């Protein structure tokens, strides 16, 4: 399998790296883009932890090969917050204790983004059905449903706040509290070619 050069955009920043065709998009995002907010649960499309937005639509990044995303515009959980300010959906999850270990949360957040974009005023049933593709082992879902309903309220009062960064360049987050991982990069640093040899190998070097 010859590695291929792949260029794509995540949260507005361009990344280029080489990967074997069999490398999943989830692994590419995590290892080659250094964005580990997207999680691997089942790796066969059932749990939803790997859910991201690709060209504006939710997809299971574990069921896409990175080569397929050549030229695509991706949005991951790291792109939700605006510096220190949580995205309204994140804020609602925080306010309603809709996460415990947080492992499923990025997938839930990205699913919620699409859900509320498509249906700004969902009923409880619509929320439950809309989230049915994401599994949580900790919370029992009740607070997640409440959080989504609350987020819908907030967003109804502030249209435009649903916007997820695609265009905005991520800024450096300084506060650690309740914020996603420090987003990388200004375009200059992110464009370096990353050699990706074997998958899942921890790299030495500067801590991200």
């Amino acid at each position, binding site marked *: 399998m010859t590695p291929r050069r792949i260029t794509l955009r995540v949260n507005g920043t361009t990344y280029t790296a080489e990967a074997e065709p069999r490398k999943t998009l989830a692994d590419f995002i995590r290892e080659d883009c250094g964005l580990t907010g997207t999680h691997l649960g089942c*790796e066969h*499309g059932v749990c939803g932890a790997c859910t991201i937005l690709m060209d504006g639509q939710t997809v299971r990044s574990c*069921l896409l090969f990175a*080569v397929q995303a050549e030229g695509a515009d991706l949005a991951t959980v790291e792109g939700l917050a605006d510096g220190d300010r949580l995205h309204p959906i994140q804020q609602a999850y925080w306010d309603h204790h809709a996460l415990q270990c947080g492992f499923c949360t990025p997938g839930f957040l990205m699913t919620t983004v699409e859900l509320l974009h498509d249906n700004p005023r969902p009923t409880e049933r619509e929320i439950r059905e809309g989230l*049915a*593709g994401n599994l949580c082992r900790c919370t029992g879902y009740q607070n997640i449903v409440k959080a989504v309903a609350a987020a819908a309220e907030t967003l109804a009062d502030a249209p435009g706040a649903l916007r997820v960064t695609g265009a905005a360049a991520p800024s450096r987050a300084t506060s650690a509290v309740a914020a996603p991982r420090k987003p990388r990069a200004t375009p200059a640093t992110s464009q370096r070619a990353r050699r990706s040899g074997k998958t899942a190998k921890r790299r030495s070097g500067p801590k991200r």
Partner: protein
Amino acid sequence: MKPAPFEYHRPRTVEEGTALLAKYGDEAKVLAGGQSLVPLMNMRLARPANLIDINRIESLAYIRDDGRALRIGALTRQRAAERAPLVAERCPLLRDALRLVGHAPIRNRGTIGGSIAHADPAAELTAILVALDGEVTARGPKGTRVIAARDLFVSYLRTSLDPRELLTEVRIPALPAGAGWSWMEIARRHGDFALAGVGVVLAVRGRTIAEARIGLTGVGPTPVRAAEAERLLVGRSPSEDLWNAAAAAVRAAVTPDGDIHASAEYRTHVAGVLTQRALREAWERAREAA
């Protein structure tokens, strides 16, 4: 869980795609939506030596109306078909069933052609194709051919497509004007594979059923057309007794397997119940349309 290595090909046209399939035959798999294939590859239950990614063959994504049927390109995403005004207008049965296929991210990538070529025994689209007497077009080394739904589904995950053939178009007849329809399925959780599912169409003249179509999924290795139940309905006037009789005929027509999700008895019973409910709903809709 990572897939085994493969050679990756990305044809830009149907001709390039079929040439690759002709070359690699059963050493290749077509990658369309990937929502069924990639899980198998990630678990290494499937290890195609060659993966033929057809996602850039844009000429395969379209939805057209030829006056009698919807002609849907094989690469059309399920989500796009679910939302297409043409589908809502000409075949709302398809729209309703699509809403129950998996979850949004699955439908954002999954394709109409892929679902049919994959032939999962619990798929919605295969039952609809069979109920409405649809067709598919396939292109291969011997040329192009049209396969009728009744000749297409052979067994679990098996169609009569040759490994060197590419499914290019799905043709789904439009519902008759004023017809009522209903899709009903049952699963433990929203988005799960159906334990049993049924699609019903009733064309009505006054208070008489002029035409009836009943297609089921999840009740055998391939989708089932309940022809006996259909015959029972034509020319009759709706009543609870009639729906009961049709449900009994459906139960006699299905041979589901039991598994850890549901027993054979349960699936048989529920196929009847869903048929009754679907007939009722289809009749209501036909009356509203009148």
